[in-house]
């Protein structure tokens, strides 16, 4: 049951006035109005006044239409399309010819043409205040450089021996493989030089190249082999640029544990193969034997690296903006970055 009282009657007024109230509610509402004649009088004064649509012209509506310029377009709209360059070639020609025959239209078109703004040169005086220096990329570059430097120093100072052993192994293994592959070639060289590639070790024929540094290892290895041809020093010297020293004659026995295995090359197997062709195997030090011996001599060689060379290279690359701070032991502990308007340092953690 709907209860209509003085507090809620307003929500029913519109329905009552417009006559859209349903019968049941209308009875209740009329009963309410009977009890409140002043409200009934107010409602009687209500008069539904419909809004009248005023004629409003949307200026330029033809411009919203798609496709070719419509015939209904006003002359102003046509002028606009003309000066905006929106007409097709045919439309332009037709429009120009129509305008040419009408002075009023020609005058109107001139006014439309005159609405095009004429650009003028205005200079903004404070351009310099807008310009920027690319600080962040510089910072990132320096940070990246610092990280590279730190990593480089870390590697140099902490992993030197490991790195050297590793690279030595690779170099020597490669050298041994290369020489082994060229065994036949070498033997032909010996033959040409008049030397016996399988000489008895008690004969003072050997010469040994002095290994100066790791970079010369492969070359030195070859030279050591070539040094077997010491009996013809002239020809040999033409192939070497390092100091040759006579080696004391020494008897070397092939030891089974001296095995150079690299890229499938097994000296022991090679020696076994040789032993089938040579009954005096124990008295002979083959080229591979010498290589194996030299490999074992050199594989643990420590190579000193001048850190100052590394530091100077870093400074050269960074334009002296990167410097290395060292501790009392002379080891790098911080990397100093000087970026001009900023500076910072990065600690270097050295493994003991």
């Amino acid at each position, binding site marked *: 049951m709907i209860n209509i009282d003085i507090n809620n009657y307003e929500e029913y007024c519109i329905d009552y006035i417009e006559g859209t109230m349903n019968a049941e509610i209308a009875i209740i509402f009329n009963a309410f109005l009977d009890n409140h004649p002043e409200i009934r009088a107010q409602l009687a004064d209500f008069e539904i006044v419909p809004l009248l649509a005023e004629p409003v012209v949307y200026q*330029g509506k033809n411009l919203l239409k798609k496709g070719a310029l419509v015939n209904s377009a006003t002359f102003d709209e046509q002028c606009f399309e003309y000066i905006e360059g929106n007409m097709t070639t045919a439309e332009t020609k037709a429009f120009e010819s129509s305008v040419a025959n009408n002075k009023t239209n020609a005058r109107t078109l*001139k006014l439309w043409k005159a609405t095009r703004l004429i*650009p003028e040169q205005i200079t903004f005086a404070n351009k310099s205040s807008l310009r*920027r220096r690319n600080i962040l990329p510089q910072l990132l570059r320096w940070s990246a450089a610092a990280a590279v430097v730190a990593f480089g120093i870390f590697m140099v100072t902490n992993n030197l021996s490991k790195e050297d052993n590793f690279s030595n192994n690779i170099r020597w293994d490669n050298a041994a493989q290369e020489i082994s592959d060229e065994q036949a070639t070498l033997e032909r060289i010996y033959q040409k030089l008049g030397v016996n590639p399988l000489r008895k070790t008690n004969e003072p024929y050997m010469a040994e190249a002095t290994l100066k540094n790791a970079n010369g290892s492969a070359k030195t290895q070859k030279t050591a082999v070539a040094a077997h041809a010491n009996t013809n020093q002239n020809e040999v010297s033409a192939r070497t640029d390092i100091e040759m020293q006579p080696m004391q004659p020494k008897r070397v026995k092939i030891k089974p544990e001296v095995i150079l295995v690299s890229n499938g090359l097994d000296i022991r197997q090679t020696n076994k193969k040789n032993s089938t062709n040579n009954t005096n195997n124990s008295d002979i030090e083959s080229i591979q034997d010498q290589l194996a011996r030299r490999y074992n001599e050199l594989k643990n060689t420590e190579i000193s690296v001048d850190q100052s060379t590394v530091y100077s290279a870093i400074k050269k690359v960074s334009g002296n903006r990167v410097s290395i701070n060292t501790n009392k032991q002379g080891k790098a502990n911080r990397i100093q970055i000087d970026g001009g308007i900023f500076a910072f340092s990065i600690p270097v953690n050295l493994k003991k």
Partner: protein
Amino acid sequence: MTAVEYNEIVDEMSDKIYRYALKTVYDADTAQDIVQDAFEKLWVNRDKIPVEKAGPFLYRISYNYMIDRFRKDKRQYFTDTLPETSHSEQYTDLKEVLEKALATLSEQKRSVLLLRDYEGYSYKEIGDIMEMTEPQVKITIFRARAAIKEYIGTMNLVLE
């Protein structure tokens, strides 16, 4: 966008943005603020804005700045100033008359017309800058030109 590219845009665009702002707000200090603000925002967003889009971006920032400024100043942004209708002087300088006619337009119409005639932007580009549809841009330009035409028509302007 690198700093070098950004600085090249400063050289190429700062005059244009300043002219656009000056012609829209008619106040040199405000126009300079607009330029500074636009380029500051370009720099901040330089990683997101391709070089070829820098121009429209600057105009858009400038336009938004002007809208905010107008709203703060409680000016009637969308209302044209009614032109004076009686002139005894006969004008021969079309440029001068155009300047006066332009000043009677609302900032929106003025802005659209400047982008169209000074910068040669298409309806779509102007729409992108001012966040309007192409038809809206076209109608706005039409009304701006019609208003200027009416203004010029009230002058005793000698047209060639």
